[in-house]
């Protein structure tokens, strides 16, 4: 298959390109992993977080704005 050949020869064969691909993959992985974990935790703890309850307790403060 063309794509497999291109990916293997272009990226996986040399350690230098493989390392760059891993670092790039880690950056992308971090973004999506953090997002997915935050969403899951919010859904698992729905109604218990401050973000869900702040409307009930209005406070005049710089952080609120």
């Amino acid at each position, binding site marked *: 298959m063309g794509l*497999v050949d291109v990916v*293997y020869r272009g990226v*996986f064969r040399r350690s230098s390109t493989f390392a760059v691909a*891993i670092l790039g*993959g880690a950056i992308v*992985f971090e973004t999506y992993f953090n997002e997915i974990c935050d969403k899951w935790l919010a859904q698992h703890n729905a109604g218990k977080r401050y973000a869900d309850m702040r409307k009930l307790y209005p406070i005049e403060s*710089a952080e609120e*704005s």
Partner: protein
Amino acid sequence: RKLAIPVIRNSSPELQSFKARIGAVSCLARRNYHTDIPEPDFEAYRSNSSKQANVSRDKFDAKRKVYSYTLVGGASAATVYMGKEIVQDLVGYLDINDAARALAITEIKLNDVPVGKSLLTTWKGMPLFVRHRTEAEIKAEQAVDLLSLRDPQHDSDRSLTPEWMILVGVCTHLGCIPLQDQGSFAGGMYCPCHGSHYDSSGRIRKGPAPLNLTVAPHKIKGEYLIVG
């Protein structure tokens, strides 16, 4: 259809003639157990891409190896992420914690201070002067010749916006607290201890103080002023 794979065994004619030629000693002629076992046939395990006899196997590396390399790469990326998080957290312990940072911050609602008025509050235990300057004061301060100042600083270097002057209210002479809206300069401060006059930008003009009043680090977020 089986391929004819030549298998060299201890009892083969080729090996025996070779041994005869090199004058092998009799121990090599001893029959070993492993010659009774036929070499297994691994044909079923060979991948399709490597069965072409006349083509170098390097041409078909990709299809066989890309699966393993993808798994290794994915696991490595996850490991790099874990290592980065650990190092980041450990280094982050050197930073001040959120409770201490909250104590070092003062918030002021900007609408509480009308134009031309000053506010006295505290920041980190020190008196804080917040002045909402008028247009006349701003123009006067920006036009001051720096060479005539004891501690030359331009007015625009002392605040984010010209209207808001945020100063630490401690006289740079011997540490008294000056009085706001007093002294010879419009909108300025006057220290009653030894008679230091500051202008509305907090710069020393007359009197014994050597330096200008310290500008407190601040930023404006919406309608709030956050000092510190």
